[in-house]
């Protein structure tokens, strides 16, 4: 069963078009060197899982991609737009790139529907009716259209995270970033969020996922990146990565995470 799905996922087309290209990127927090010499190219349709011990800089890396964090050296190009301190470029990239956070970060004072329509109305200048239709479409896709008029505080964690995914999708992004989307969830809710992410992958969305869900990585990813101490230590296709890790750090990490 799992094998069959994996195969299905593997069949997804990865085009030659480059979605994200990071060259020689370095970042410091004060004097602390958090990201070292990051080189990464992501093609359109790729599904990349980034894993690594905590503090290895994986969250920082994807937060640099939509300029939530500033990098000091090197270049990041997203969809052909070079990320600079120019506010116009940042706005452009952010409206192309969706992001899902570990702690959902839904707006507690707005209903689920308002959470989903806020950015389309203000950023995309879409009429309210149309924005609501889009929002309902995506809420149906994450299977919670009946919650549209509730407030985030009334939903379970898993439901909130699915709303957060729908909220990002309403901006019709071409790339989705996931920052440990299931880490704050109870075990029984993880599956519903992962299912949502899998169906997203099957539609060909370009995805960068920081996660420790190795089952998800095997099933969906076409590339797994292992980071440690601010650098990319190893990257490979999931089969090779899990079955035949090359670096000692990777082996140690995998034995710890899959060991039990």
């Amino acid at each position, binding site marked *: 069963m799992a094998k069959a799905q994996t195969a299905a996922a593997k069949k997804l087309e990865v085009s030659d078009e480059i979605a994200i290209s990071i060259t020689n990127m370095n970042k410091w927090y004060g004097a602390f060197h958090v990201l070292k010499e990051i080189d990464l190219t992501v093609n359109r349709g790729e599904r990349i899982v980034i894993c690594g011990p905590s503090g290895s800089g994986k969250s920082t890396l994807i937060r640099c991609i939509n300029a939530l964090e500033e990098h000091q050296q090197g270049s990041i190009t997203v969809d052909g737009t070079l990320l600079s301190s120019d506010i116009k470029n940042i*706005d452009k990239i952010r409206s192309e790139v969706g992001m899902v956070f570990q702690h959902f970060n839904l*707006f507690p004072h707005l209903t689920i529907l308002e959470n989903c329509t806020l950015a389309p109305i*203000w950023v995309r*200048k879409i009429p309210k009716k149309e924005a609501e239709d889009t929002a309902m479409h995506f809420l149906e896709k994450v299977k919670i259209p009946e919650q549209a008029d509730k407030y985030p505080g009334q939903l379970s964690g898993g439901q909130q995270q699915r709303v957060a995914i729908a*909220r990002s999708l309403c901006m019709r992004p071409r790339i989705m970033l996931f920052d440990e989307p299931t880490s704050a969830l109870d075990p029984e809710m993880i599956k519903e969020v992962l299912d949502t992410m899998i169906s997203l992958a099957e539609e060909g969305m370009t995805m960068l996922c920081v996660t420790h869900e190795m089952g998800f990585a095997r099933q969906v990813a076409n590339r797994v990146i292992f980071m440690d101490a601010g650098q990319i230590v190893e990257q490979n296709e999931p089969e090779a990565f899990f079955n035949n890790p090359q670096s000692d750090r990777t082996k140690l990490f995998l034995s710890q995470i899959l060991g039990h």
Partner: protein
Amino acid sequence: MTATPDAPPIEGFKVADLWFDTRYRSYTFQLIALVILFGSIGYLISNLLTNLANAGLNISWDFLREPSNYDINQKPIEYTSQSSHLRASIVGVLNTLIVAFLACVTATFFGVVAGVLRLSNNWIVARLMSAYVEAFRNVPVLIWIIIIFSIMTVALPGPRAYRGEDAERSMLFDMFAFTNRGIYTPRPEFLNPLMGAQIFSWILVLLVLAASFFGVRALTTWATKTQNATGYRPVTWYWTLAIWLVPLAILMVAMGLSWEYPKLAGFNFQGGIQIRGSLIALWFALAIYTGAFIAENVRAGIQAVSKGQTEAAASLGLRQSWIMNLVVLPQALRVIIPPLISQYLNITKNSSLAIAVGYMDVTGTLGGITLNQTGRAIECILLLMLFYVTISLSISAIMNVYNNSVKLKER
């Protein structure tokens, strides 16, 4: 577990049940509490009556109708020393409300500016604001009132300094004079007032401002509607400005607004508005002291909105100003407004320190001169307390309504 053989049979009432049976226990306790309560109140009242009888006093409210025989230096309504004590109290109440209102507005301004700047990433400004907050909230407000009052009465020159050909001081823009008798400012006046009375003209001005307010609200509603329909929000700030200013300007011209400037006549200034040192001392001391507390509330409110909220909004592509208006402020205000309102309550209560600088608020009239002249201490203080309690309770009631209306919905 099928049956409980030793279940207590239902018994008749025993006296001991009053103490040990959960059914009666609470009534017993309450009865005891009631007895103690009425006992102590009765004891206090019997003492009171004995003491009053010994001193040949009684409780009577007639003094309120007698002439007060004293003057009040700031009278928002007509008042002479022949007016009744009741009227003197009302003048005091109005003076309390005036200084409380002024101080609330100013304190909010100080507090918001200091609270926001304290979170600024400008190191020196943030430090400066911390110093302001710590310096002012750790020193008694009475000392601040006295310090500012001393500045007003001791450090400023007398009106005579403005006299003569080469006076030591000259008026600011020929409009403002800062003297130890207060600050003199121009007084607005209508040359052809509505129905011949200044007061009607001012009411008309207020009505026009209210109309503008609703006009601006309608404009905002229209803008939102347009945005909902087309996706684009029309730019309205110049319309907002026009709605506020144009009708007001037309009204001012039509009614012939002019300014009466304060002029030095003899040894004092005549004309214009005299803002007494006592009012300024009370106003600014309360504002700057309470502002320090409000700054803390504002800071806490803004910090209560987690960084994740701004990050999520930013990652959706919202701009800085939209993030502030649509995400941060609506959440922060829920945290800020309740303590803000209790700070307003504190200002109102602290305005009773007016008596330390001779500002004639209700504590100064009813609790001060009226009390001393009539000797009706119990009556005066009771009325005084009732006034403050009424204000406090009404503000608390408003706050509860507000809190319930903005409470975040949770499971």
